Each structure stands twice: as structure tokens, then as C-alpha cells.
């Protein structure tokens, strides 16, 4: 018994150490954002909310924040629609060369993002000016599609394909059957895919660097640009804001997972009672 307890204690210490190692560098931006020294002095000589006031009053930062959120949402919508359709086609329909398509939709994970960004850059140079707001969501969506496909596919593979056939014999057109029977059962996976896409887009820096210009900067690009010239006390504030956005997406993701698991478990609990 004592050995088991000691083992558990060691395990806990180890887990906490790993968690701290993973999270602390990110969390350090929070005290730094409240640093009263404008030169990012560490440890902070005092605390102030001055930089926050300045950040939210700066139209350039607000524009960057707004663009980031917009790109994240639009790219997530594109990724979810395309990714779900691809996952459905690959699991439910006999697609010719489906192994090739399988590999094709996994490519964005493997291809170096720098190469992808450079390619996107060549494309945007060839296009008329002002296409950033169009290309950026598309590029982010492409990077997120593999994750949506993987998630939705797993969900589709565990649901009975005959449910749709049953719905069709009951009078539902294939589209209605998909909407009323398939979509509700894979909704948690679709939601999870959407949030993954949002998070990916929020901190996507490499492709964004290639595609943005001075007038249209996303948060990561603007943060990167800000520290290239000088120490900027607003960068930790921007980091904290980004951290907040990502964390809320992460919490939403967890909530979806838990709700889905509860929904799956509910009938079993009721049956045993």
C-alpha cells in the first residue's frame, strides 16, 4: 500500500512538472503584460494596466485583432464544409482513386508550411492587390482541412451507414437524410474540427507572413513585426489576448467532447437504473 502511494506521488510530481514545462512559458506573458517597466524588465518592478488601455485604444492593433478573428471564423467554416464533405465521400461513397485522395488531403500536414507560404506568395503577387483578405482564409482552411477530415471520418466510421438508407426508405431524400440523421450523429466531431481549425488559424504565422502586407496584418504577424524593431510592451498584452482567444476555443472544444460523451453515456445509465 505504501509503495503504491509513493508511486502515485511520484507520478503526480512528474505530471505537474511536465504540465508546468509545457504551460509556464506561455503563462509568463500574463505577468509581463502587466509589467510597469516599458522595457519588459524581469522580474517586473511593478504592475500596471496601462498597456492594456493603450492596446485597446490603438486602431492598428484592434484592426489586426478583428482581422485575425474574422480569418479564423471564415477559414473554420470553409474547412468544416469542405472537410466534412471530403470525409463523407471517402467513407460513404465509392470514390475512384480514393487512396490518392486520402493522401492528397493529408498533404498539408506534411508539406513544410514555409514552402506552402512561398507558393501562396507567388500566387498573391500574380493576383491584383487587396486579395489578402480572400486568400488568407482559404490558405488557413487548407491547413485545417486534414484535421477536420480526420475527426469527421472517425465519427462516420463508427456510425452505421445503414441509418441513412433507413431514412431514405422512410421518405427522406439523400440530402434530408444527411441533414437529419448523419449530421446530428457526427456533430461533436464536426464541432471539434471547427474549433481545431479556429485555433490553427489564430496563431498561424508562417503563411500569414507571406500573404499579409503593412495594411492587413493578423495578430501574429503584427506581434512579430512589432518586436523586430524595438521592445514593445504591447506585445505581451497581444500575447495574453491571443492566449485568451485560444484558451476559450480550447475550453469550448473540451465542453463539446464532454457533452458528446455524456450524451453517449446517458442512455446506458438510464438503462441500468
Amino acid at each position, binding site marked *: 500500500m505504501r509503495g503504491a502511494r509513493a508511486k502515485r506521488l511520484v507520478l503526480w510530481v512528474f505530471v505537474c512538472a511536465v504540465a508546468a514545462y509545457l504551460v509556464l512559458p506561455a503563462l509568463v506573458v500574463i505577468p509581463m503584460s502587466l509589467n510597469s517597466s516599458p522595457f519588459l524588465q524581469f522580474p517586473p518592478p511593478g504592475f500596471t494596466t496601462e498597456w492594456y488601455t493603450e492596446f485597446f485604444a490603438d486602431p492598428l492593433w484592434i484592426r489586426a485583432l478583428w482581422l485575425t478573428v474574422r480569418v479564423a471564423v471564415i477559414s473554420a467554416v470553409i474547412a468544416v464544409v469542405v472537410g466534412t464533405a471530403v470525409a463523407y465521400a471517402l467513407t460513404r461513397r465509392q470514390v475512384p482513386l480514393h487512396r490518392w485522395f486520402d493522401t492528397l488531403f493529408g498533404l498539408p500536414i506534411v508539406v513544410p508550411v514555409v514552402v506552402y507560404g512561398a507558393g501562396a506568395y507567388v500566387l498573391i503577387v500574380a493576383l491584383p492587390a487587396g486579395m489578402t483578405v480572400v486568400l488568407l482564409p482559404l490558405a488557413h482552411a487548407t491547413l485545417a482541412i486534414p484535421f477536420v477530415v480526420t475527426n469527421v471520418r472517425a465519427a462516420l466510421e463508427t456510425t452505421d451507414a445503414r441509418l441513412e*438508407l*433507413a431514412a*431514405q426508405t422512410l421518405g427522406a431524400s439523400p440530402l434530408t437524410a444527411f441533414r437529419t440523421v448523419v449530421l446530428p450523429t457526427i456533430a461533436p466531431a464536426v464541432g471539434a474540427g471547427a474549433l481545431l481549425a479556429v485555433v490553427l488559424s489564430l496563431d498561424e504565422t508562417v503563411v500569414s507572413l507571406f500573404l499579409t502586407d503593412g495594411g492587413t496584418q493578423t495578430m501574429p504577424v503584427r506581434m512579430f513585426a512589432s518586436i523586430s524593431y524595438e521592445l514593445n510592451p504591447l506585445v505581451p498584452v497581444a500575447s495574453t489576448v491571443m492566449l485568451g482567444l485560444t484558451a476559450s476555443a480550447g475550453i469550448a472544444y473540451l465542453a463539446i467532447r464532454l457533452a458528446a460523451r455524456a450524451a453517449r453515456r446517458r442512455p446506458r445509465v438510464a438503462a441500468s437504473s
Partner: protein
Amino acid sequence: MSIGTAETTSPRSDRRAGRTDPSPGPAHAGTLQLRSVRKQYGDVTAVEGVTLDIAAGEFVTLLGSSGSGKTTTLLMIAGFERPTSGELILDGRRINDLPPHRRNIGMMFQSYSLFPHMTVEQNIAYPLKIRKMPKREIRERVADALELVHLPAHGKRYPTELSGGQQQRIALARATVYRPPLLLMDEPLSALDRRLRSSMQEEIRRIHRDLGTTVVYVTHDQEEALALSDRIVLMHDGAIAQVGPPAEIYDHPTSLFSAGFVGESTQLLGHLAAASGPGRADVVLSDGTVVAASCSADLAVGAPVVICVRPEHMSVALPGSTAPSSGVEMVVRDKAFMGDCVHMTGRFVTGDDGVVRIQPRQADGLDVGSAVVVSWEAGNALILPRESSQG
């Protein structure tokens, strides 16, 4: 189910019949015709020229092993497979080009296929909602359907909270609630255990009587087919081997395949010796014994034939006792007590295998390894031509 429940359900079905149907068809809706229906996948012919007329209200079973084409035929009727050639006609209308959701056919799947995210009520209401029926009528119909399958209190539950048998009943309620003229059933009982299966068979018969729907049922289980059907369509290698009422298929198989697939039988190889009367013929068995049997096929003298005898039509005696002279000797290989009968297998002196079912008291003293004389009435032994594929 008891007679009492049958009585309580019949007035309900009368009331149901008086209600206006959202899709009124002809008075005897549910006639189905298959005209030389063929289905080919590349070089493989799954269904080969099936022609079949199914009357309104008839319970027809497509019986066959896997690969016999029975499921492909069902999927073509449902609309999930397209015939390569031939015609499907439902109530006088060609349905070949109609997608499944426009055929107004009910279908029950082997896996129940209830929607897991909907309650039982929502599952049953689904086809009615699709048909945009008024809410009040949906409620009434769902309640009626739940009563029909004897699960009136289970509407608020989720499918996973129900047992396999209950899920099957809900699937049946959902497939019939919009009163399709034709109900297709794809091995609906194969996932249930034996006892549940026989009670569900009774349920299916009762609901078929109550609703009067035409049913096309698919199974590989010959007992199920015999128990449920008005007519059995025995399928083999994509074609129809024999069509007829269960008793006819059982008593008068037209081929060795029919005799072997439906029910058990002892098959003795021999050659036709001579006609011995109207519908009778003598057969020389492989050891030279001559036995009489009934013969309906037109066969030449000397033709290779098989004599088929059902196990319950054979009697067994110890050699030397009062055995009839027409008996054939068999060595008992195995003996199993089944409660109401004793099931005995053995090997005849002719080299053929035998299956015999006798009363338990007649089996006394007939132990494994002992030689017995097996005999039967000529009228119960059927002469069938030996098919080349049977060797």
C-alpha cells in the same frame, strides 16, 4: 402473444382503417411484379432473370444462402441497387428509375437502424414528419404504432435503452407507421437469440395480419421461411430454384437443391429401374437393393436419380424383427435426444448418409454402432433427377 391481445388490437386496426390515408392508393395496393430482373456487377451476375408476381397482402420470403441473390433482389426492390435489365412494377407502375425515398416502401434492416439521437417517438414520427403530416395526427399515429407493437410506454426512451427485441419492434413500428403498401424485411431476426426469434415471428405474423401489408422477407433460415411465409421463393446462384407455399416446397421439392435446402432429408443415390405404377417407380440403389418411390419427374429408365426421404417419414427397427421387407440397413453413427423425438444419423450399406427422426420409445436398444433396418412408405420417398453439379 395470447388470444386476448389479438382481440384488443383488432378494433384498433378497424379504427385505423377508417382514417384517411395521406397517400391513398388503389384498393388492393401492394402488388409487386418482377419481370426478368437481372443484376450484373462487372463479370459477376448476382441476379439472373428473376420473374415473380406478388399479390397484395401476400407474405413472400426470398430464401437462400449468401450469394444466392436474395439480398440483391431486395435492394433492387428498395431502390438501392439498379437492375441491369428487367422491370420492377409496384401497383402497376414501373419503379426502376424511382429513387428509394420516392417509392413509399417500408424496410426493416438486420441492424434495426434506429436513429440513436432520437427517442422512440421521434424515430416513429420521422417518416410522418417527412410527409409533413399535421402534428396532432403524428401524435395519434405514433401512439397507435407503439400500441401495435405492444410497447405503448416506451415512447420517451432512446433506442440504446431498449433490448434487441424491443428495438426490432420499434423498427417495425417505424417502417409501417406511414402504411406503405409494401414492407421489405432484410433478415430482421438474425441478430436475436432463438427464443426471442420465435416470439418475434409470431409478432410479425400478427402485424402482417393486422395491417394487410404485402411483405417481402429475406432470410437464409429455412425454418423461419417455413413458419412465416404464404409463399417461399427459393433462390440459388442468382436464380429462382422453386416457388411455392411452404408445405409444397417441403413436401414436393422439384430439385435436389430444394430438398437439401429446406428441411432435412436422407438422400440415397441410385438409378431408375422401371415404372411400377402411376407416379411410382423402382430404383436400384448402389448396393443393388431395389426400392419403390414416388416419381413426378419425367425420367428415362437408367437415369441417375436420388431418393429423398424426410427424417420423420422413416421408421427404424432391429434386423430380424418385424421389419418391412423394403428396408435398407444402416449403422447408427450418432443419436441425440431432442425431448419430443430422437434424432439419429447413420451410414447406409449403400454408402449414403441417413438422417432419421423417431419417437423416443422406439429408440430403445438402438445404440450408436448398432445396425438397424430403416424403412419408409413409397409415397414418402421422392425420386429426383441427379444434377450434374451434385456429382
